[in-house]
């Protein structure tokens, strides 16, 4: 089903850029306010920011204003051009990631045949940004933090990729849209009242994926790279003002985007079970899903980010060796077994 309006190419591009900005910054702001400011405070029996705006809702604007007016400090012996580029690379990875997330039957930025493959590939660009941020700062803490981040992100990328393979096998496609359709048009043993969200059949994959996402986002208990009690602030130590702000936005925007991807892969994405409205495939889906779809996606994202943040605020930090051992000795074998099981069951059914 196509949108009746047709736009010239430049207008489409402009709309995509604006949409991308909204899709990255709106979740990031919401996540920071709802979870970082409020949920974390409530979990520690305090109220969090209350003065800026009603219930402190304008606090984030105050924070951004504060960061923007700070002095832009750069270490004298830093590699200046690299130092400047690093946060942008990290943020760029977030924008590239959101490009493949479908928000509705027609509400998408790009619709690659191999969207999952693309998403997993671009998500690792941020490692580069973090690594060169640590290296170019000319600071031992930054360097250690950058190397820890590189080791961790590479280690946890594997279980993430392997966890997604299960979904890809079951859906039989790497296209994000078709994965959504496959889940919502699917049925469980002939009953199609819920569709077949892959969190049910791929629960191991979902668990491994969420753990890996937690590590990819360097949220506690996987926050070794920025462990403030050991490394000051890891690769971000020398960053201040606007550049720090970019790292900060990237951190929480990426949390949102990974939650969006997880909801596409495991929770049925923008769709509702198609049987509710008598749809059979992509062709039958009504146009109003383009409006409702993003809202459904947003709700699912908030749910998953709640999970991520809840774990972040509850658990203490892993030691570096425990962290690596957990990835290589637990998550990767588990996800390999999951792939085998999925492949066998796919052939059986």
């Amino acid at each position, binding site marked *: 089903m196509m949108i009746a309006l047709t736009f010239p190419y430049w207008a489409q591009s402009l709309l995509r850029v604006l949409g991308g900005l909204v899709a990255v910054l709106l979740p990031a702001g919401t996540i920071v306010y709802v979870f970082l400011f409020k*949920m974390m*405070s*409530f*979990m*520690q*029996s*305090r*109220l969090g920011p*209350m003065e800026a705006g009603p219930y402190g809702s304008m606090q984030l604007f105050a924070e951004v204003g504060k960061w923007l007016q700070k002095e832009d400090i750069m270490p004298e012996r830093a590699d200046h051009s690299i130092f400047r580029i690093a946060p942008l690379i990290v943020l760029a990875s977030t924008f590239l990631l959101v490009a493949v997330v479908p928000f509705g039957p027609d509400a998408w930025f790009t619709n690659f045949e191999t969207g999952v493959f693309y998403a997993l590939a671009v998500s690792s660009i941020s490692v580069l940004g973090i690594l060169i941020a640590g290296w170019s700062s000319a600071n031992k803490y930054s360097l250690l933090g950058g190397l820890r981040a590189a080791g961790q992100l590479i280690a946890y990328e594997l279980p993430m990729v392997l966890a997604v393979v299960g979904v890809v096998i079951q859906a039989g496609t790497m296209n994000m849209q078709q994965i959504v359709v496959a889940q919502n048009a699917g049925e469980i043993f002939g009953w199609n009242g819920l569709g077949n969200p892959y969190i049910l059949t791929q629960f191991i994959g979902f668990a491994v994926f969420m753990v890996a996402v937690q590590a990819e986002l360097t949220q506690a208990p996987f926050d070794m790279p920025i462990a403030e009690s050991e490394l000051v602030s890891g690769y971000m130590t020398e960053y201040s003002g606007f550049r720090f702000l970019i790292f900060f936005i990237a951190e929480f925007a990426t949390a949102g985007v990974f939650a969006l991807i997880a909801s596409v892969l495991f929770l049925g994405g923008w769709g509702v079970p198609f049987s509710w409205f008598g749809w059979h495939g992509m062709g039958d889906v009504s146009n109003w899903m383009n409006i409702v779809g993003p809202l459904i996606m947003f709700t699912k994202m908030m749910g998953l980010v709640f999970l991520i943040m*809840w*774990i972040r*605020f*509850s*658990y203490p930090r892993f030691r570096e060796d425990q962290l690596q*051992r*957990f990835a290589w*000795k*637990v998550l990767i074998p588990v996800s390999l077994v999951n792939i085998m099981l999925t492949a066998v069951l796919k052939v059986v059914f």
Partner: protein
Amino acid sequence: MGLKPKVPGLVKGLGVTFNTMMNTFKDGANTVQYPHEKEAPPVRARGVIALREDNCTSCMLCARSCPDWCIYIEGHKELAPPRRAGGAPRKVNKLDRFDIDYALCMYCGICVEVCPFDALFWSPEYEYSEPKIADLLHDKTKLGEWMETVPEAPELEVGADKKGKK
């Protein structure tokens, strides 16, 4: 592998944070929104040091025992009329200056302890921050005004001899 199953403890940990969140929703936070609502400090809190000028003999014990050297005292001797007719005039110490620099003070209370004439007292008052650091130097008039906020000394224990302050 060294990884024993830790799941029950992990779930319990999540429960703790979740329950705290729910309790904060229901019963409010444990914190106080300071400028809007205030907690009364304990009666014997060390907020600010008050001076009863009449009792001070400018003996300098407090200034000398102060670890931060934040007490400044200047005085001179004056002749006062004799107690009885025909007696010699008495010499008394008059206080010219008694300043405490609260920018330096570390609230150890040694000056209050060491004062032999009951001239210094603790007051629980704590709201005297200033935009300019020089204004934290309280002179003897201001220190005297704090006396109004000094709480009554608590009842003595049974059998104690009456030597308490104030």
